[in-house]
Structure formats: C-alpha cells, structure tokens
C-alpha cells in the first residue's frame, strides 16, 4: 500500500476512543479547579463521557460497515465493537462503584478517573488491533495505569506491596511478550496478525519459533492471571481500592483475553497443534489451583481474587481446543470465550460492587462481616447470592449459559476425535463443584448465621443502582441468553473464526 493510503484515517472508526480520550483529559483538567467536596463531580463527568462513547459504538454497530485506520492496524468490525460495548459498559459500572468510594477517601480523584479512562482506551484499542505493535501498545496502555491505581491507597502497606508486585510482574510479562514477538518476527518478517498467520502456515517448525510463540502466550498469561503467572493477583486485589480490584479482575482480564483471542485464533492458529496442549495443561492448573486456594480464604476480596483466577482457567479451555484449519471447531471455541467473558463481566463486577458496599461499614472485608447480611440488607445479600450462584453456574442465571458454551465447545471437540475435549469438560465439572462450595459458604454465611452487627449496609444511590442493574442483568441475560450468543456470533463471524 502506498503512503497516502496508509495515512488515511477513518475518524468515525476512532470516535469512541477519541471521546474517552477527550473525557480523560477533561477530567484531569476540571478536577484542578474543583475544591474539597466538589472534586467528586468529576465522576458524573466521566460517566457522561463513557455514555457518549457507548453511543458512538452503537452508532458504528448500526452503521455496520467494517472500518479501518492506520493502514489496517486498527479496525472497527463487529468483533471489535462487541468488545468495545462490553468494555464501556464495564467502565460505566466501575465508575458507579467508584463514586462514593473515592469521594470518601478524598484523594487523587482526578488522577484516578484519568487513569481508569486511559486504561479503558487501551482496552478499546485491544480488540481493534490487527498488528502486534498495536497490540503491545494497547496492552501497556491497560497495564501502566493499573500499576498506579493499585497503589492509590498509599496509606496502606498492603496497597504498596500489591502495586509493587503488580509492577514488577507486569514489566516481566511485557518483556517476555516483546522478546517472544521479536523471535516470531524473525521467522515471519511481518507484524500484522493475518500476515503472521499466512507466514506460519508452511514454515519449518524450529524449536526457537515455538519458544517465541510460547513466550507471547506467557506474556498474555500474566495479564489474564493464569497459573503459574497468577501470583500478583490476590495480593494486588487485596491491596487495591475495591473498585480497582473489580477493574483488574474483569476489565483488565477481559482485555487480556481480547488480545489473546486475536493472537491465538488468528496469528498463531497454524501452530495451534503445538501450543494448544500446553494451554490445556495451564487451563486445568489455573482452574484447579484457583478454586482449591479459594477454599481456604477468609478474606472476601482474596476469595474473589482466587475465584477470578479459576474463571480465567475456564476461559482458557476453548483456547486449548484450537486446531489448525478446523474452522468450525475454532469458531465455536471462540464464541464460547466471548459468551463467557460477557457473563463473567456481569456477575463478577456485581460481586465486587456488593463487596464495595459492605466494605464501607466493614473495611476488614472478612467473611464474618457477611454474617446475617440477609437480615440486615436483604437486597444486597440477595444480589450477592445471585452473583455467586451465577459464578457457580446455576441455571437459569447467565453464568450457567457461559458454562454451557464452554462445555459445548469442549464436547464438540471431543466428538471430533479430540478426546482431550472430554477430559477438559470433566475438569470444568469437578472445578465447578469445588467453586460452588466456597460460593455457598459466603451465601450460607449471609442467610444462615445470626448477624453480629445489626445496622444495614448503606450503598448509596450510585452503588445501589449498579448492584440492582447487574442483578437484573444476571437473571435477564440468563433467560434471554440468545442476546449474548447473538452478539458473540456476530463477533465470531467478524473475527473470521
């Protein structure tokens, strides 16, 4: 392509990102001129910006044409738009959760909202990236604000420790990823994802190439907190402000998956018979270790942290089913990941939202603080019960259909003579049962124990709205599962799976 074509930019395709970028800068600026209590008004400003961006995403989706910019490094097809819609909705809920929390800490409000919006720009770039360089930039744009946000509670040593661990491991993973990319580039001579796939189809499989591929996957493994690269997650979640923990466990992880999907289902697909078995082992280890460790947790945030590690394991299962050239199988695996991500976002943010509300009264976040919550705040306790049951995969909640999608992908692969598919399905079953036992422990504590404290939890309007909205989505998207599967399907078609 010539230079003129490469610099041709479709501004409409970039509009959602630009809207968020403008909001981020505006938030930073406006906060300087607000004093004391008024600083919290940057939150509604950020919400408006996100809503505008969401509107633009919808407009792009209605428009329906595939758009591109920066010489095809950035595209806005329905795959990317589905993810952007997801990310912006997540952003909306994270902002709702943050409002009261940060207004009460009363520090760094402008910085926080600037950072979180920047991270969301990175996320929105991720599914649009069709080039390794772009992908890397997007990934770092998600990570770097995360390092700072994790340390925002700087009066708490645990926050400092968590942020430091996150930073060091994050940098390690970024360098591993870059190293892997450089090796792969040496073999393919291109940084475009589609070009890499084409170059890898008939390449001699030298060990170095496979090592490079694995390095790239490992780099993403850190991001999605897959075992054995998960060590940062519990400490970081525990130390971070709870809305940031929600952000890390859902949004940042989903962004990691958005990138990983492109890398493994498009770029490295021709080599998948070599790396998929490794991913299978990692998936089983991730879910098992996450769940078994979660069993022993008494701190609710740590429990949710390990649970989110386990969920990363479930979401890795479809990656282990990728096979070169098996378009039908691969696309149902891809669709399973998408469905799971949507469901996971709804129920996990919901759980963190309730934890944020309860933490206002019980900053210790101990399991015992939830004793008798059903009598103190039936709404909060009922919602958290829904979220936990959904995380455990109970029908007809949205988490159930996510599990069905994973099972379907695994069994379909199993029937296509990959016995491993059945093994993975059984691993998911066993892990689901383990996970339900600790979800039920929290639920049981809320409804079956006597309260130690009689005062109701007061979430405030924004948080209350977030919890209620997510509870409705958990049930509604469960019953109307076609909505999610339809979006996922459109996205899969766009991704060319």
């Amino acid at each position, binding site marked *: 392509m010539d230079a003129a074509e490469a610099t041709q930019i479709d501004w409409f395709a970039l509009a959602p990102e630009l809207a968020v970028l403008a909001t981020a800068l505006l938030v930073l600026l406006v906060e300087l001129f607000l004093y004391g209590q008024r600083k919290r008004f940057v939150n509604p400003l950020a919400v408006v910006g996100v809503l505008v961006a969401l509107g633009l995403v919808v407009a792009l989706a209605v428009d329906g044409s595939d758009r591109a910019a920066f010489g095809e490094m950035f595209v806005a097809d329905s795959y990317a738009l589905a993810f952007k819609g997801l990310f912006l909705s997540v952003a909306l809920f994270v902002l709702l959760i943050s409002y009261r929390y940060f207004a009460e800490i009363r520090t760094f409000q402008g910085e926080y909202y600037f950072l979180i919006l920047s991270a969301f720009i990175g996320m929105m770039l991720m599914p649009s990236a069709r080039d390794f360089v772009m992908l890397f930039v997007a990934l770092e744009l998600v990570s770097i604000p995360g390092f700072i946000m994790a340390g925002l509670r700087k009066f708490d040593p645990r926050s400092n420790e968590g942020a430091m661990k996150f930073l060091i491991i994050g940098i390690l993973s970024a360098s591993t990823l870059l190293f892997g990319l450089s090796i792969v580039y040496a073999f393919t001579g291109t940084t475009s994802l589609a070009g890499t796939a084409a170059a890898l189809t008939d390449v001699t499989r030298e060990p170095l190439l496979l090592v490079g591929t694995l390095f790239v996957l490992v780099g993403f493994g850190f991001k999605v907190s897959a075992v054995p690269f998960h060590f940062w997650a519990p400490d970081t979640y525990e130390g971070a402000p709870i809305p940031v923990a929600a952000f890390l466990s859902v949004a940042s992880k989903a962004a990691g998956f958005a990138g990983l999907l492109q890398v493994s289902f498009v770029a490295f697909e021709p080599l998948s018979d070599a790396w998929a078995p490794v991913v299978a082992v990692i998936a089983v280890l991730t879910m098992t270790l996450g769940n078994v460790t979660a069993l022993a947790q008494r701190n609710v945030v740590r429990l949710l942290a390990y649970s989110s590690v386990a969920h990363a394991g479930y979401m890795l299962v479809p990656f282990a089913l990728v096979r070169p050239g098996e378009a039908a199988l691969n696309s149902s695996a891809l*669709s399973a990941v998408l469905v799971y991500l949507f469901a996971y976002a709804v129920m996990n943010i919901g759980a963190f939202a309730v934890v944020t509300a309860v933490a206002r009264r019980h900053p210790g976040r101990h399991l015992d603080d939830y004793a008798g919550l059903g009598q103190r705040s039936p709404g909060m306790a009922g919602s958290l019960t829904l979220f936990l*049951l959904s995380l*455990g*995969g*109970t*029908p*007809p909640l949205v988490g*159930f*259909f996510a*599990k*069905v*999608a994973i*099972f*379907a992908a695994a*069994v*379909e692969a*199993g*029937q296509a003579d990959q016995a491993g598919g*059945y093994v993975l*399905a*059984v691993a998911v*079953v*066993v892990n*689901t*049962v383990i996970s*339900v*036992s600790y979800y*039920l*422990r929290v639920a*049981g504590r809320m*409804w*079956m124990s006597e309260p130690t404290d009689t005062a109701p939890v007061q979430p405030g309007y924004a948080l209350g709205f977030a919890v209620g909205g997510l509870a409705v989505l958990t049930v509604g998207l469960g019953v109307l*599962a*076609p909505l999610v*599967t*339809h979006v996922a*399907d459109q996205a899969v078609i766009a991704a060319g799976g």
Partner: protein
Amino acid sequence: MWESAALSVTVFLPLVGAAAIALIPHAKERSAKPVALAVTLATFALSLLILASYYLGPAGGQGRAFIVDVEWIPVIGAGYRVAIDGISMPLFVLTNLLTLLCVVYCFHHIEPPGRPRAFLGLILLLQTGMAGTFVAFDLILFFVFWELVLVPMYFLIGIWGGPHREYAAVKFFLYTMFGSMIMLVGFIALYFGAGAETFSMVELSQAAAGGEYGIVFQRLVFLAIFLGLAIKVPMWPFHTWLPDAHTEAPTVGSVLLAGIMLKMGTYGFVRIAVPMLPEAAVDYAPFLAVLAVIAILYGALCCMAQTDLKRLIAFSSVGHMGFVMLGIAALTTAGVNAAIFGMVAHGLITGMLFFVVGSLKHRYHTSTIADIGGGVLQTTPRIGAILTFVAIASLGLPPLPGFWGEVVALYAAFNPAEAIVDAGLLGLFRVLVVFGAIGTLLTAGYFLTMLQRVTMGTPPRRWVDAGLQDVSPIELGAWTPLLVTTVVVGLVPLLVFGITRPDVSRILTTALTG
C-alpha cells in the same frame, strides 16, 4: 389459547407468586400464607383442568398434548419446548397436589426462625422447578428446571433445618450439582452425536431409535447421564446425601424432597436415558437391577439400625426407590408402568410419613425413637392411628398403592425385556427377584418394629403430663387429601396405570424395537 398457554401458566404461576410474596412488606409478613395458598390452589386447579382436558380433548388420553415449541437459544438449538403425556401427567399433578398441601401445613407450623415470607417464597420457587422438570421436552430446559430446585431446597434445609443443617444443605447441593454437571456434558454429547444438532427430546429419541448413536458412544453418554440421575434418585451407592438432607430438612422440605424431587431422577431414566440411549440401557440393565436390589436390601437393613424416625424414613426411601429402579431395569412396559406407579405411591405415602413424623417432632421436640418412648396411640391417638396406617401402606400391604408398585416391579423383573433374555441374563434377574422379595419382608419387619416401639406400649410419664395436642384441624386439612388419594389409588390402581400405559408402551416400543 388454552392448549398453548395452560402448561406454561401452571408452571410459572408459582414463580409469579414467589415474586409477589417477596414484595410483601416486612410488617405484613403473615399475609404471605394466604397468598401462597391462593397461588398453589390455583395451580392445582389448573393441573386438574389439564388432566381433564387431556382425557376429554383431542389427545384422548395418550400421546403428547399441550405442545409448545418455540425457539429460545437458536445458536445452540435449545428451545422452549413443553408438553405433557401420560408419563408426565401423574407426576405433574402429584407435584402440584403435594405443594398445595405443604402450604396448607405451613398454616399449622413453620420451623424456627419462622419468616413465612421467605419460606413460602422458596416453596413456590421449588414448585416451578419441580413441575417444570416433568413437562420440559428440551434437554436444556429440562436441565434448567432440574437445577432450579437445588437453590430453594438448599436454603430450606440450611435456614430452617435441624442442628446440622448447614452441613446437610451443602452436601446436598454439591453432591447433586456434581452429578448434574456431568449429566449436562452427556446432554451436550447427545446434541452433537445426532446429526440434527438439537436438544429436543422428541427428535433425539427419534434419532436414537433410528440408530444414530454408536454403541460405544451410547455407553459413555449413558454413564454420564446415569451419574446425574442416580445421585438424584438416589441409587446405592450414591445415596449418602439423602439421610442427612432428609433428617435435617424442615418437615415440608422433607415432604417435597421425598415426595417429588427423588422422582425427578427416576423420571429422567424413563424420559431420557432409556429412549435416547436404548442399546446402552439394555447393556447396563443388569447393573441397574443389581444396584436396585442392593438398594432395597441395604435400605431395609439400614432402617433396622436407625434410632431416629426421620432418618428411618429417609433410608426407607432408598429401598422404595430401589423397587422403582428395578422396574425400570426390566425395560418392559409392565416394569416401567410399575416404576411410575411406584413413584406416585412413594410420593403419596412417604410424603405423608414425613408429615406425620414432622408433626410428632413438633410436639415431642425430638424425632429420636427412644425419646418418644412409645405409646403415641395413647398420648395422641389420632396421630398414632394415622402413623400406623401410613407405615402399613409404606410396607406394601395390599391393596394399598405401595403393594402394586412393588409387586408389579418384581413381576416385571421376573420377565424382563427380550433383549435382556437374549443376553442370557434371565437367571440373574430371577435371582434378583428373590432378593427383592426378601427386601419386602425386611421392609415389613422394620416398619412393624418401628410401629411397635413408637405407637404401642405405655407412654413415658412426662409425655402424658405434657398434655400434647392431638391432630389439629389444619393438619387434618393437609393430610386428608393424601390419605384419601392413597386409599383410592390403592383400590383402583387403574387410575394411574390407565394414564401411563399407552405412552410407556409407545416409548419402549420405539426405543427397543426401532
């Protein structure tokens, strides 16, 4: 309109009722009871109407009727498919009857901590799950209803249960969920195994009859589905969750657990496992039969060792469900009919047993046989008489329903399906019949011993002085319909056999002869 809406309205009315009850303000908590009563009465009336129009309508009492088939999740071929046939009908009506009576019973007593709003809301949610399971004709929809019962039952046991309630509730939930999830994997395998890629039970049964599934595939998938169903039934050796759950559950919880929820497992064998995996069913039939007979003997022997009334009845359920499974394992029309009859009989009788024992526990504050100490016929003569009648019904005295279920099951196992005879297993089945018959003797033994220790003899001084109230009008109101139905079904077994026979023979003929 009636044809397409009747089932859905009947199934989801309790769900709407549960939502309505949840909206009742805390201060008016007591009004939850009349609301729940109105909802369950309406549901039961509707199910009677469905029963009547199934007979009088175009269906003429056989085949599927009230069919609804709309797309639900087109991507995975799951639909909202409901219908009712002769196999579902008795269980569907029984579900709505028992739930109604449970709600009536709640006017008499709810275990501490009370909270009738939450309690009745959960009961109604449970009703939707149970009734839906029996009319779902789509595997995913079936599974949704099947799992829907877990959550309310978990909370019923966990909040209103006995001293070890949390342990029992979690054990119940995890055990059942494990089996169910494996079963779900089996369902998905069925989906991909048939060329049609659908979850419709009718189409999958047709595909199976058309020989779509290879034998190895069938054997594997049967094992997966078997595990889910067997835990629910429960079959020996998967029964260990049951004694704990039944013992700890509040009275109404035990009644519904024993009366309906166990049948979901055996119903699954009749509706799913056998018609969709017929060759594997023939292969595994001897194993099912052996496990069933072990359950009969083991249940009876365990009963003899029990010191607690609720636990004793719980183990007696293991034995009774053993007879049901023996009937299914015979794979003949007689056997499956006996199985369904056995389910209904067990639902009526054991539901009633748990009611009486719950009422005893309410009065004596214990269900330990030694603490009650005998003489119930003197302290509370009417309750004692009812207990005696129900226990005798449960041990299978003719002509009460327990007898018909057991004797026909034994008869069927004596002459199992031709495929089983061809495999040279007739001898095995006949030996099993002998052991099953010994089981009926043991059953009579432990029930009579129990009656002797509980109802007869001189009551301990403290119970005589306690001035215990005999059966209350509300209890009588909740029990009379069950007692009358028990007698009527026993005297006229054709009431149930007549409903089930045409569809059972249709399903078996399609499945086994292709």
